């Protein structure tokens, strides 16, 4: 789960990392009140869960009250990569002497968290990695011992930080790591961490990604989920215990298992890509395939108005495919979809399952023997070319 900048900075602040004293506004008037509290100039920053908001005009420095009014008005309601901006963060504008990058991330291969820092702050770290890889310093952390003081000094030394700032840098790095551990984060990032002209270190921007697998033990963070920033269907799917990610294609996919779900999506693209056809979603219905869960999944898929056909791909393993087929038909009759549906059943009793589907003689419901055939039929159907 990704946190908004203001949420991440809220957690930073709670753990002792200095952040600007700004607040969040949902209207222009609120933005003006906050700006009056903290004084001009201010930075008005769109709170959206995507990168590139700066380039999209979602971050502006306002030096007058008119500018606060103008920029807040422009940014609130703006679209950035399909997401509407509902909130802005109004922060005091800092006098920046130096910008640093500082993050704690997970190194999968090492199975360890790693402190990453760079003197090249303020730009995307992938850009630095590409242009100037030697400017990125990595210090691995023993998860059982935590970040040693000496490690923060090694990093401070390696990024050529003036020694006057070592202690503040060490405190911030240790707190950032604590923030990472205590909140079950998989990423905590400060970019930029700035040294102001007054010699203070401040986390000007913040990013946090929380381990979804651990959200159950962080009710406070789980409650921060911004439902307005998420597709409504995704919210409903999560509530139904279904893994669903909305995409931009035309073929709705319903699959049991994440790997097979990705593969099914890939097949629609493989056979439809040349015609601009691809998956409308990722959907993993999980184990078994009871009629009510299938029905819920169907409704979620069909709530996407781009969907032109649906591909259901179920591998019957311990659950037998004939049972799955019966559940499918029941769900179909409940939801009564108005687009063609291709069902491919594989595994145990797949032949019997296919027969049940065919025998049901439902218009718009087609069987397929292989994934290849199913994907091809779904592409045809999406193009309106399947009878």
């Amino acid at each position: 789960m990704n946190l908004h900048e203001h949420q991440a900075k809220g957690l930073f602040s709670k753990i002792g990392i200095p952040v600007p004293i700004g607040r969040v506004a949902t209207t222009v008037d609120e933005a003006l009140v906050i700006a009056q509290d903290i004084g001009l100039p201010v930075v008005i920053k769109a709170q959206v869960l995507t990168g590139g908001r700066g380039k999209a005009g979602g971050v502006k420095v306002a030096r007058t009250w008119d500018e606060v009014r103008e920029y807040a008005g422009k940014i609130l309601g703006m679209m950035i990569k399909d997401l509407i901006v509902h909130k802005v963060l109004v922060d005091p504008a800092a006098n920046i002497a130096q910008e640093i990058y500082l993050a704690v991330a997970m190194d999968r291969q090492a199975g360890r968290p790693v402190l990453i820092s760079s003197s090249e702050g303020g730009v995307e770290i992938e850009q630095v990695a590409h242009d100037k890889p030697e400017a990125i310093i990595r210090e691995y952390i023993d998860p059982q011992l935590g970040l040693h003081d000496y490690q923060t000094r090694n990093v401070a030394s390696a990024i050529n930080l003036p020694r006057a700032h070592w202690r503040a840098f060490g405190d911030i790095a240790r707190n950032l790591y604590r923030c990472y551990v205590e909140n079950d984060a998989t990423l905590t990032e400060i970019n930029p961490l700035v040294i102001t002209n007054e010699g203070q270190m401040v986390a000007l921007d913040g990013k946090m990604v929380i381990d979804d697998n651990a959200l159950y033990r962080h009710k406070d963070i789980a409650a921060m989920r911004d439902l307005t920033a998420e597709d409504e269907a995704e919210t409903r799917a999560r509530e139904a215990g279904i893994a669903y990610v909305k995409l931009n294609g035309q073929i709705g996919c319903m699959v049991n298992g994440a790997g097979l779900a990705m593969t099914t999506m890939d097949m629609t693209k493989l056979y439809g890509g040349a015609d601009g056809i691809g998956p409308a979603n990722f959907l993993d219905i999980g184990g078994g395939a009871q009629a009510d869960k299938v029905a819920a999944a169907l409704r979620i898929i069909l709530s996407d108005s781009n969907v032109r056909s649906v591909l259901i791909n179920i591998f019957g393993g311990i659950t037998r495919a004939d049972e799955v087929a019966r559940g499918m038909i029941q769900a179909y009759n409940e939801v009564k979809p108005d687009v063609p549906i291709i069902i491919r059943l594989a595994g145990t009793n797949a032949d019997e399952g296919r027969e049940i589907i065919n025998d049901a003689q439902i218009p718009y419901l087609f069987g397929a023997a292989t994934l290849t055939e199913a994907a091809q039929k779904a592409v045809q159907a999406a193009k309106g070319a399947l009878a």
Partner: protein
Amino acid sequence: MAILADKNTKVLVQGITGREGRFHTKQMIEFDTDVVGGVTPGKGGEWVEGKPVFDTVKQAVEITGANASVIFVPGPGAADAMFEAIDAGLDLVVCISDPVPLWDMLKVFNYLKRAESKTRLIGPNCPGLLTPGQAKLGIIPGVVGKPGSVGVVSKSGTLTYEVVYALSAAGLGQSTCVGIGGDPVPGTNFVEVLQMFEDDPQTEKVVLIGEIGGRAEIEAAEFIKKHMTKPVAAFIAGASAPPGTRMGHAGAIIEGGEGTVEQKAEALREAGVRVAENPEQIPGLLR
């Protein structure tokens, strides 16, 4: 021969009295596995599918002589169950549990890296492993497999069943099928399983099923290039997945431009692996 487990493996089921534990215990027994007992704290003395239930792994090992376990306990208790199994000195632990918090898994992972540990951990969030005709530790449907000489290693569940089923249908039996799981930090990685297949006399060819996210397939490609003599075919899922979005598995996410299917397929091809665009091509690529 097979790898990891065979008909001599004595298996405990941790969380045997739960719904999943009960169901899959029955399935495992039906598919030839030597299940010797189970563990559920507080339920010692009960019986499940004719097997004794113990309160602790320690007791269960002392009494049954088990040398492996399959963990079905829910995610929040999974790390404790893994530590219990490791500290009881089991050779093989297969953790089906999902979701396991990454931080919990990190502790287990780093504990295993210490020299004194001799336990091999598969998972978590994995379907387990199947040595057709000999043993099944986990939830891979036994019917999909068939004894033979193809080694299968995969991050996925049902996608693996598909591929194994297709192999069996094409007459290509398997030595062992290993689902390492789709989490970012698995107990056992591709390279470790590939090494076992390379060393296993029964295994003649290998299938690797990967997905987007992380660098595990790249490391596998480097290993194959340097160390493998047996032919390998592969499929990588997630070609159509957009960056920055988690595709079901905690590990299946393209971050910072890393972990795309393209990169992985390219590295594997360069290592001499036949890479399928469509998993149904795999039996053909092994001919």
